[in-house]
């Protein structure tokens, strides 16, 4: 299998004055071991989403991740990108929706979901996309270890050297 060029370090900079949670430049202002959810989401029923995992999802690290459009668009790689102008707020909203849909299907609370990976179609900010959420356990409890987009409106991936939208399947439109 071909391995994409490493673009983990194509960061988008840190927190700057005047940047709100909806900005793609926003980084959750928490330590690696502290949980954070966007302020417009009631997170009382959700698993923890640690600062280290937010960095992973948004910017990437030595195990992968980095699904901000700005990071992925820096050069050909295997990563998929959330829609171009999305930041932590909308990515968190998509993850929360997927968690709640999946928990409902399984008849448990989102914070009670087991270690697993699942994908759901969500509609966020008027866009329909399928995202994957991966859950695991660490000493802080159930935690999100990553979330990334698979396909949908605004989801892009490098295909044959061109950053291209990955369309939904016919039954998902």
């Amino acid at each position, binding site marked *: *299998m071909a*391995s*994409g060029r*490493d673009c983990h370090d194509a960061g988008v900079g840190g927190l700057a004055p005047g940047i709100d949670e909806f900005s793609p430049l926003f980084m959750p202002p928490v330590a*690696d071991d502290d949980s954070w959810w966007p302020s417009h989401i009631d997170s009382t029923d959700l698993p923890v989403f640690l600062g*280290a*995992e937010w960095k*992973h999802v948004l910017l*990437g*690290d*030595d*195990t*992968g*991740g*980095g*699904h901000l459009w700005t990071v*992925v668009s820096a050069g050909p*790689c*295997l*990563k*998929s990108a959330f829609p171009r102008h999305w930041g932590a707020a909308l990515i968190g909203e998509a993850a929360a929706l997927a968690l709640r849909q999946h928990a409902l299907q399984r008849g448990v609370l989102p914070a009670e979901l087991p*270690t697993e*990976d699942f994908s759901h179609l969500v509609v966020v900010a008027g866009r329909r996309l399928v995202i*994957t959420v*991966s859950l*695991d*356990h*660490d*000493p802080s409890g159930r*935690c999100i*270890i*990553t979330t*990334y987009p*698979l396909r949908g409106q605004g989801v892009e*991936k490098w295909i044959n050297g061109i950053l291209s939208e990955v369309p939904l399947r016919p039954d998902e439109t």
Partner: protein
Amino acid sequence: MTTDTLATTLLNDLATQPGVDVSDARTHIEYGEPGVAIIRMLSQSITNASLTIPAAHMDAIRAWGQTCRRNVYRTTADRALRHAGYPGLNPA
């Protein structure tokens, strides 16, 4: 060995083993999440008796786990190594 390389190496080996489903791991790799692919394959090696991590990869798994800063990754690598009868990771 990079995370990408280790994930692909494990995937290629495990894909040939009967009773082993690597489809999720393959998707993780193809979407830029090789670390998740690795820990899912390592977790399978603990829970699925059909899956055996080749002994030749144990040193690479230990070296990879040792470099991981994320706790879940370190814990999973440590458990998989010990489950297979090898020394685990050094304490962080």
